[in-house]
C-alpha cells in the first residue's frame, strides 16, 4: 500500500500497464518492462522494484502472466514474463473498461 503512495500508480492501472507492455513487446524481464513504461510515459512513470515485483507476483498468482528463467543477450540469467491466454483476455476486458471510463471522464470534465 505504501508503495502506491510512493509511486502514485493505482494497482489496477499498474496491472493494465504491465499486461499491455507484455502484449506489445512479447516476453520481457522486469527491468525491460520498467524501462519500457518509463520510455512510453515520457519519464512520468518510474517503477520502484518494491512496486513492480509484487505486481508481477500478483499477476502470476492470477494466472495472467507466466514467468520462466532464461538467458539474456548479455548472457545473464533473468526471469522473462509472458502473457497467458487468460492474461490476454483480461487485458482486453480491462482495456475496454479503462477506455470507456476515460471517455466518460473526459466528457464529464469538459
Amino acid at each position: 500500500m505504501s508503495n502506491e503512495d510512493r509511486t502514485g500508480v493505482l494497482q489496477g492501472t499498474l496491472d493494465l500497464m504491465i499486461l499491455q507492455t507484455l502484449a506489445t513487446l512479447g516476453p520481457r524481464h522486469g527491468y525491460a518492462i520498467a524501462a519500457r513504461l518509463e520510455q512510453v510515459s515520457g519519464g512520468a512513470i518510474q517503477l520502484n522494484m518494491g512496486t513492480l515485483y509484487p505486481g508481477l507476483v500478483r499477476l502470476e498468482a492470477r494466472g495472467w502472466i507466466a514467468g520462466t528463467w532464461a538467458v539474456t543477450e548479455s548472457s545473464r540469467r533473468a526471469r522473462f514474463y509472458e502473457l497467458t491466454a487468460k492474461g490476454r483476455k483480461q487485458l482486453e476486458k480491462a482495456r475496454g473498461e479503462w477506455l470507456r471510463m476515460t471517455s466518460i471522464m473526459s466528457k464529464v470534465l469538459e
Partner: protein
Amino acid sequence: MREWLWRVWAMVRRGRLVAEKREELQHHLDMEIESGLRQGLSADEARRRARWRAGLVSDGLEDTHAALGIPWLDGAALDLRHAWRALTRTRGFGVVAVLVLAASVAINTLIFFMLDGVVLRPLPYASPDRLVRLYDSSPARAKFPMAIGHFLDLDTSEASIESIALYAGRDMELTAGAGRSRPLTGVSITSDYFTVLGRPPILGRAFTNADLRKDVRHVILSERLWQEHFQGDPAIVGTMVRLDREPWTVIGVAPPGFQHIGGDYRSPPQGESVDVWLPFRLDLEEEAIRYYHFSNAIARLRADVSPAQARDDLARFSTAYQQRHRKAGAWQVRMEPLLDEVTGRSRQVVWLLVGAGGLVLLVACANIAGLCVARAVSRRKELALRRALGANRWQLVRVGLAENLLIGVAGAALGLLLAGIGLPLLRQLLPADIPRAHEIALTPTAALFAAGIALATVLIAGLLPSGESRVLDASTRVTGGRDARTRRTALVAGQIALAGLLCAGALFLLRSYQELGARDHGFKPAGVLTFQLAVPRAGSPNRGDLGRLIETIRQRIEDVPGVASAGASTNLPWSGYDENTNFIIAGRTSTDRDTPGARYQAATPGYFEATGMRLVSGRLFERARDGQGQPLSLIVNDALARRNFPRGDAVGSVVRIFGAPRQIVGVIGDIKDTPADLETPAAFWVPLEQQEFNPIFFAVRVRTGDPASLTAAVTAAVQSVDPELPLADVRTLERRALTALAPRRFALWLFQAFAALALLLSGAGIYGLLAYIVRQRRKELSVRAALGASRAELGRMVLADGVKMAAIGAAGCLLLIPVGGSLLRTFLFNVHAFDLITIAGAPAALLIVSLLASLGPARSATRSNPATALRDD
C-alpha cells in the same frame, strides 16, 4: 480460488521463491547501473542513481515476500511463532496447562463416549424413532407383559400401528455330544419381529404365521453363531441342527451385528445377545391367549401418525377390547418409545456423570485461567515494552490468544489420546447392565467434542486475564499488582468450591454405598457358587422326571467334598425375576377377587440354606417331607405373611395356588428386588419336586475358601448325572450381588476419581498462587525477618493465606452441597441432602489439601534472609 491455491503453494516453497526473487531484483538493479554507465556516469554515481530509481534490493524483496503469501495467514503464523517461542521459554506454564487440560478433556471425552453410545446415538434399526414398546397396564401394574389377545387384535385392526411382534426369552442347548454341548440364548418371536425392526434375515426367510404353532421346529440363527459354529456355511438354510436334543430346521440367518431390542420380562438384554430365534407359539387355548401375560411387545408406528395420536388410538382400542372380553380384566395398552425403554434408568447415571465431568472441566478452566493471569502479570514488562515499541492492543491480545490456541490444540490431542487409551478400561469398568455399552466407541463426533471443549476451555481461560487491560497500556508502570492477586484468589477459591462440591458428591455416594452394604439384605452372598441349568425338554418327559433329575444332581453336588449345602430355585436374589400369579386363601371368601397376586418361585431343599436366607417361623423344605407324592407344601416370605396373615397365623394356613391347596410350612425373611428397594413384593416358594420349572439356578455354599475353586468338581458332579448337560452363567453369588450394585459402584468410582482430580488441581492452584505471593513479598518478608520475625511467624503468615482461600472456597461449597445432594437424590440410599458427615467431610478435605499445598510456599517464606532486603535491587 486458483489464486489462493497458487498463494498457498507459494507459501510452501517460499524460501526458494524468495531466493529467485532476490536474483531477479539484483538483475534489475545491475541493469539499472549498466544503463547509468552507458550514459557516461561514474561507477559510484551510476550505483547511486540506480538505487534512487529502483530502490534497495532488501526493500523490494520485503514487499515481494509479502506479496508471495496470504496476509492474514502470514499474521497468524507469526503470532503462532511468537506464542511457540514464548511457551518454550516458560516451559513450566505450558506443560502444566497442557496436562491440566488434557486430563480434564480425557475425562470429559470418556463421558461423552458413554453419553453418545448410550443416549445420543440412534438405535441400529430402520427409523428407530418410530419404534415403541407396548405393555399391558393396570393401576396395580404399570408395565406388565402383554397378553397374546391384545397382540392378535392390534395386529389385525389397529390403524396407527404399521407392524407389531411379540417375543420372549427361551434358552436352548446346542447339542453336540458329551461335554461339547453349549447353552444358547434364544428368543421366541412372532412373524413380524424382523419386519418391525426393518432388518430382514440375510439368508433364508423370517417366520410366517404358519410357523407359530406347537412342534414346529424351525430356527433362525444369529450371524455370529452361523460363523462360529457352522463356519458360515452358505448352504445352511434347510439343514438340521440339534437343539435341546431334538432336530430343528434352519430357515434363516439374521443380519450381521443384529441387535436384539431387550425387554424387562424374560428377555436377553439389548445388543448382540441372542444366538437363536425360535417361533413364538400362538396356538394356545383361549384362556392362555386372553388372560395370561407373558410376552414382550414391540411395534412400529405408521410414519404419518404422531405418538400422541397413537396413544389416543390405543386407549380407544383398549376400551373396545375390554367390552369385547369382559373377563380379560381392565388392561390398557401402554406405549413407550423404544429408546427410553432401552436406556431408561442408566440415562440418569450417564447424565449425572456428564454433570460431574462438567464440574471437573470448570475446575480445569479456572486453574488454567489462574495460570494465565499469573503469566500475564509476569509478562507485564515485556508487554509494556512491546506496546512502547509500537505493537497495538490487538496484536498483544492476539499473541495471548495464539498461545492459548497452542495449549488448546496440544491439550485436545493429548486428551483424546488419553481417552482412547482409557476407553478399554472404561469398557471393563462399565456395569454390565448399562445398556448399549457395546456401542461405546471412539467416533469422529467424540473427537470433535474433545477439540471443542479443549478450545472453549482455553479461550475462556485466556479471556479472563486479558480483561487485565491495564497491562496493555504503554503508560502503565511496569510493576506487579494487587489486582491480579485478588483475581487469582477468586479463581482459586472458585476451584476449591467446585472441588468441594465434587468431594461432597463422592462422599454422598460413598455414604449411601456403605449404608447399602450395612443393610440386612436377607441373604448371605459370600461363599456361594451359582449357575444356571436348562434341562432339555425333548420328548416331553413325564411329570416328575425333571424334579427327580434335579434332586439327583443336587445330591451329587452335596456329596462334593467342601460343599456345605446345595439347592436349586427358579431364580436367585436380585436377578430381576418377576413372575406373578394370583392365589386364594382357604376359608376366606369375601376378598378372593381382590387378593393381590404374589411372586411365584420354586425351590429345592437346601436352597435356603445355601443362599443364607433367614427362617422367620416354621421350617424350611426337607427332602423327606416335600417331595413328590407328599402333602403339597409352601413357604412364603415375611412380606406376604404380614400382608395376608396380619395376625401371625401364616404357618399352618392353606392357600390355593396353581389350582391346588397347599399348606404354608414356613416363613422366610424378606429380600428386596434390588439392593436399594424400600418395599419387598409378596412372594412364595413351592417345592420344585411338587411343581417343576425349567430352567433353574443352583446355589452351592462352600464350607470355606473361594467357591469358584469348586467349579470343576461341581461341573463333574452335574455331568456324572447327564454328560451332555452344560452349566450356564457360572458365577459366585457375591459377583451377582455386586452386579446389582454395579451402577452405584461405577458412579462412586468415577466421582471419587473426579473429586481426587479436582482436589489435585485446586491444590496446584493454591500452591501456585502462594508461591507467587511469597515471591512478590520477598522483600517484605526479608524486612520482617530483619526486624525480628521468627521463621514460624513467617511460615504462619503464608499458611494463613492458604487457609483463608480454602475457607472462602469451603464456604462456597457448603452453600452448594444441599443443592448437589438433592440433584443426587435418586442415587442416595438412607443419606440425606444435609448429611452431616458429608457437610463436615468435604470442607475438611479442602482444608487438608490447602494446608498441604501451602507447606511448600510457607517453607520458602521461612527461609527469608534478612540480608536479601539489603541486597535485592
